[in-house]
């Protein structure tokens, strides 16, 4: 059986994405995910190259990138912190958690820190309502985040990132 998620389909050579095709259009999302993981965003040039590789118009790639909230065409921080803003999270104080992150990172919601390390966003339900308020740090889910835990969390993340 093929190992899942078809990520090995894109290889990078001399700064260029080379798509190992026999891929079809249906592999567009895994291919985009791979680039998003490696570079943190999907540039216009990446989109053009993917389109060439798959034999579709670059606008189609662009339309897909802009549709999905986890894919981005603009550079974001290395560490994206997403605070869930669904109702159970709001009820248990996610707004205060957001404020605490804003203070700790010295940015506003939706912004990236100047050093390019952190981006702060909100997102819909992340399936952690039983442990609200919950956040997503890149792809890791974390529950029971209170505002006074935020400072320590950022410090920990900075340590891990600088290693």
């Amino acid at each position, binding site marked *: 059986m093929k190992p899942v998620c078809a990520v090995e389909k894109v290889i990078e050579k001399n700064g260029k994405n080379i798509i190992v095709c026999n891929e079809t*259009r249906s592999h567009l999302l895994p291919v985009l995910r791979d680039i998003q993981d490696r570079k943190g965003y999907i540039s216009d040039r990446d989109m053009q190259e993917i389109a060439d590789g798959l034999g579709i118009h670059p606008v189609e790639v662009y339309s897909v990138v802009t549709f999905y909230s986890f894919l981005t065409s603009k550079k974001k921080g290395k560490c994206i912190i997403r605070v869930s803003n669904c109702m159970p999270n709001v009820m248990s104080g996610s707004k205060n958690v957001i404020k605490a992150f804003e203070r700790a990172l010295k940015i506003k919601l939706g912004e990236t820190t100047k050093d390019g390390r952190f981006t702060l966003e909100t997102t819909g339900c992340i*399936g952690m309502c039983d442990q609200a308020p919950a956040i997503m740090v890149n792809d890791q889910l974390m529950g029971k985040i209170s505002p006074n835990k935020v400072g320590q969390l950022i410090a920990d993340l900075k340590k891990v990132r600088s290693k």
Partner: protein
Amino acid sequence: MSERLGPVIFSRIEPYAGLKKALELGKNEVLETIKKSNLRGRGGAGFPTGLKWSLTAAVKAEKKYVICNADEGEPGTFKDRVLLTEYAKLVFEGMIIAGFAIGADAGFLYLRGEYRSFLPGIEKVLFEMQKEGALGSSIMGKKGFDFNIEIRLGEGAYVCGEESALIESLEGNRGEPRNRPPFPVNTGFEGHPTAVNNVETFANVPHILAKGPDFFKKIGTDKSAGSKLLSISGDCKKPGVYEVPYGISLKGVLKLVGAVNVKAVAVGGASGICVSKKDFGRKIAFEDLSTGGSVVVFDAKRNMMDAVENFLEFFKEEHCGQCTPCREGIPVLLEGVQLIRKGGCSKEYLEDLRSLAETMQCASKCGLGQSAPNAFISVVDGFQKDYKLSNKKKEEKEFNA
């Protein structure tokens, strides 16, 4: 963690007992068994699973697919997180049985992007199953039955939980729902017949086969057989995932989680309805309160207009933008709610908003738009103490201008 207990999914079962039984029975018998059990889709719409599989099985095609919809995005739902981290083998066993019954040799697990961190664990289960002969070719020694499962990730789009949008997304497109008919059972992934079921539906299947359809039918009500996983959160002592038999009243649910002084329960998340105290005798069942499993408890200090505003903001973010009633209706309802909260909404304008909400319910293209106004209507009708209307018509004119 203590062992989970429940009437069906959380009850004990030998690994592969359902699959072995299915291979012994043969395709037609499996379809008959599922039909007899009255199993209905657990994602919320409640389509009879046996019928869906029979329709897919009846189509003559070279290639067929089984898709497991693990894109639970409904606010307040997290049952699939529990199923995929603790019961993944059971879910995959259900998918393999579905593949056997409809004649498919490939399946997809469409996993929401938010659950990406569970990927290594789920992949490990798949490799284990491959080693045990439950995936790959000649499954469990049955010659001619091959089945493989591939995991595909979503990228954070709620609308992809709608089955045709999910298929669009799998094909590498924007997750926009298709016109139906044709239904996926005829024209699904890349035009091939496809059975799309919820994670929880698949988790029921091995139990039904191993223990018989009568075991399953005995649980629940006449029209809603079996049990439902509820994801309960909000103002309660013990939030979490509970397996309850269909037919349980809201009162019973609230007792289970230790919720006191409850004012309202949002059943079905943002797309469901908010039930007020006088209706707590209503039952969780397809014929009464049909739900995908989200239960959010609100206590007396909450204002339900907050909830409606939050839900509509969510829909404004997540709708796909294809059809007019939904795309244009949601922002108008949201502004209306904000106006009501400011105290500037007249009775007449509220009537207009209500009629717009009803139009959206019947004119939107997919389930998202059709259900987006549910919470609005239920709160406007059921929680009149939570908002005040303005007597003046002037402010309303200002707003419209």
